[in-house]
């Protein structure tokens, strides 16, 4: 799990162009949106693509993203349970 969390942080930094950030800078329990990393709606859509591309998880209902993208830890947990690749 820890490995997945670390990998996910790297992927998030890459696809969302979080320049100047390292995986160590991201608290896996902190909120991704709003206060935490300050991500926005386009970032959320890009995370949906990341899940499909890298883990084979197709999120049909984008509003479900709200729960899944709560934090890196929650996201990793969801990926662990639902991944197809």
């Amino acid at each position, binding site marked *: 799990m820890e490995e997945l969390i670390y990998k996910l942080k790297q992927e998030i930094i890459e696809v969302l162009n979080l*320049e100047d950030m390292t995986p160590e800078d991201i608290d896996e329990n902190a909120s991704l949106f709003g206060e935490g990393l300050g991500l926005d709606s*386009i970032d959320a*859509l*890009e995370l949906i*693509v990341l899940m499909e*591309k890298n883990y084979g998880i197709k999120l049909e209902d984008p509003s479900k993203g709200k729960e899944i993208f709560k934090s890196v830890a929650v996201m990793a947990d969801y990926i662990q349970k639902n991944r197809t690749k």
Partner: protein
Amino acid sequence: MMRHYVTIQPDLAMLDGKFLESKEIGSALLVELYRNHIGDYPKFFKMDALCRVGFVASELLLQAENNVRFEPCDDRAVIFFNQSGSLNADTHYQATIQDPGNFFPSPAAFVYTLPNIVTGEIAIRNKYYGETSFIVLEQADSAVMARQLLNAFLDSATQSIIGGWINCDDDEHFDARLFIIERNEYADVETLAKDIETIKIQ
């Protein structure tokens, strides 16, 4: 001549006719200018090249202007021209859908496939609620640009314009020549066209 004008090309940056110190080239130059002169706007790294060059150029202009910044403003328009539209962003987005076996359309790439996004980025940064507009031309034509810019003052709300040419062929090749003009600063199209030409030659 306009009071404030800026040129950014892959190998140089000039503000009000003076070279800005830099050692990088192309996309690295834009990051260098961002770090040396701006530095507090992480959204910069999400932008495509057209927005990056427009953002950096507008920041340099506004720093030179030295007015109060980031206060809501409803009398300044942002009006740009270019030849390539959003071609660079279009090419990046096309790459995400070209291969049917690796078909993952990227929303973060798609959002930049409109040239006017750069005018929106500048409006957001500066709380500009005025007119924003983007016009694509077959080729740079100072007289056409001057005519369109002076026409924009027909909207009585518009007191000043950040305007000019901003082209981006790919991530490493761009050309921005932007300036600020005020209402009543130019009486006719010919004089403004001449000053736009002057920025081009420098």
